[in-house]
């Protein structure tokens, strides 16, 4: 037990160092930019003395390490600055946009798991067969296709040509803003309101972007499932189970799969983290009002406070998910002492 606490303290300290590095990197990116932050705020026609005054007000005349200290101090108070574009604080903006991204990524990972895991198991059970090769190519294709192309083509086919799916955005124009915000997840909020029209509409809008993201992340899930299953199926306990006369399905799902489930949790957490990245491009194509779109729009407007705030938040969540993956593995698998 004592050993476990020691290790916990060790990983907590390395976590803090990484977090510090994360903050330092975003701070430095913000300071190397050639666009003068003052001109971005007050325009380049301002008189000299105004520029000088704003420089002092923003603390930009201080040495870099003092500026960094101020930056960290503000961060500790939950202050990421104000977005020039929306004129809200960046924290408010992120609170508003982030639930949409989480909703999208969560639905995507559910779809990816429901399809990817059985495919991986099937590929492992039929290792070397045509089915195995087919699954491998199908998944590799999902990993190789640019996600924005997939998104554009999906819009072209399912929205513009077949008219099966609603267009871009999170809700139909008529239904937008009809449901009061409770959790920020449109599907959950409309369920709370018992507003079935809004619920079906939100769900219909989710299917396409979530499906695109799911195909993108399925490759990794299926590949890892296959590799773990190949390992497990070669185990002696599987031979024992078969020798006892258990059915094939029971051996595969109860005995072999039961043993790899913990390792899969790790894979799922890592995939979820990876979805944050795919979400940036997918959200742009589907006009999905999430953090990814917020980030790209701020980028195009050189709104550095917003860019850095969003980058930092994504970095912290990414790190937390990676950590969670590690912790889940260590806690759930008794073999990792």
């Amino acid at each position, binding site marked *: 037990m004592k050993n476990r606490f020691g290790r916990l303290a060790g990983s907590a300290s390395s976590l803090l160092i990484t977090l510090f590095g994360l903050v330092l990197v975003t701070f430095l990116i913000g300071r190397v930019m050639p666009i003068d932050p003052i001109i971005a705020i007050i325009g380049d026609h301002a008189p000299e003395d105004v520029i000088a005054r704003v420089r002092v007000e923003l603390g930009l005349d201080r040495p870099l390490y003092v500026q960094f200290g101020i930056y960290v101090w503000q961060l500790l108070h939950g202050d990421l600055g104000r977005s020039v574009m929306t004129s809200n604080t960046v924290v408010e903006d992120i609170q508003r946009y982030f639930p949409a991204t989480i909703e999208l990524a969560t639905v995507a990972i559910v779809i990816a798991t429901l399809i990817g895991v059985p495919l991986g198991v099937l590929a492992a059970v039929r290792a070397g067969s045509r089915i195995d090769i087919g699954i491998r190519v199908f998944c590799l294709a999902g990993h190789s296709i640019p996600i924005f192309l997939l998104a*554009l083509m999906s819009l072209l086919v399912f929205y513009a040509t077949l008219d099966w799916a609603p267009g871009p955005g999170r809700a139909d124009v008529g239904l937008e803003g009809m449901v009061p915000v409770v959790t920020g997840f449109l599907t959950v909020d409309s369920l709370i309101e018992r507003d079935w029209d809004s619920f079906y509409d939100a769900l219909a809008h989710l299917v396409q972007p979530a499906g695109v993201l799911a195909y993108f992340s399925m490759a990794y899930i299926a590949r890892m499932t296959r590799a773990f299953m190949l390992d497990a199926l070669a185990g002696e306990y599987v031979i024992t189970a078969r020798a006892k006369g258990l059915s094939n399905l029971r051996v595969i799902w109860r005995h072999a799969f039961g043993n790899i489930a913990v390792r899969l949790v790790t894979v799922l957490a890592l995939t979820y983290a990876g979805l944050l990245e795919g979400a940036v491009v997918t959200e742009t194509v589907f006009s999905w009002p999430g953090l990814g779109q917020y980030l790209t729009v701020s980028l195009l407007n050189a709104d550095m406070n917003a860019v850095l705030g969003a*980058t930092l938040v994504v970095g912290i969540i990414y790190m937390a998910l990676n950590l969670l993956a590690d912790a889940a593995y260590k806690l759930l698998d008794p073999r990792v002492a």
Partner: protein
Amino acid sequence: MSEAINRAWLLSDAPASRAQAAWGRRYRLWCDFRANPLAMSGLIIAVLLILASLAAPLLARYDPSAQELTNRLAVPSAQHWLGTDELGRDVYSRLLYGGRVTLGMVLAVVLLVAPLGLAVGCIAGYFGGWADALLMRVTDVFLAFPRLILALAFVAAIKPGISSAVAAIALTAWPPYARLARAETMTIRNADFIAAVRLTGASSARIVLRHVAPLCLGSLIVRVTLDMSSIILTAAALGFLGMGAQPPSPEWGTMIATARRFFLDQWWVPLIPGIAIFVASLAFNLLGDGLRDVLDPKQR
């Protein structure tokens, strides 16, 4: 006749020289690799793409920037094999020249990143102690960002363009190599042959450069090949978001970005460069998968 002799020489169980042993090993790896049809198709496509980009001036039928405004967004035809874009430029010729930009960016990133990652990883793994702790913490920081997002922030801070895109991708791509090289180095570090080299008086630099680094190369090559596809995708995504190569450059992601407005009516204009990205990325993925099976069987 001579082929049979060569084969016997290569497969000899008792090689007479170091060179013969080395070539024999390479030949056996090649035989393993050749037996994998997916990997071979990846190799062939990748080589064809590289050759086509190199020979772009010979293969292109038009100047990639020549505009023909009376013939905008034309469907593929005998004059324009893949149609024309929104300024009437020949898509086929732009695709060829765009391959140079895309593959050039990949090459630049790999040349920057692989040696850096190898150096960081070997030094951290070989010396251990505080050097290891310091270097690995730095690596952790860069691993803590999703790749595309750090690259986006970085490019936004400098200036959108090809060279900043390369720098940004390189900045985000090196940590996994460092991790990999460190892990490999740590398994080699305490081997008997390293102790023997040390006893003969070799310096640390010599041991790392001549004896440790070459042994990390196998898994590094696999990783680089698999990574090429993700570099292609990141470069294309940067281009698509307007943060990579800038128009009128025929970079594939940028081509899609400018043609995106027409995708509901002239869908082939953005689709064609998209297919090029897909094919290139798939080729490197297949190739990397095959190389992994041959060079790094324990990773399978």
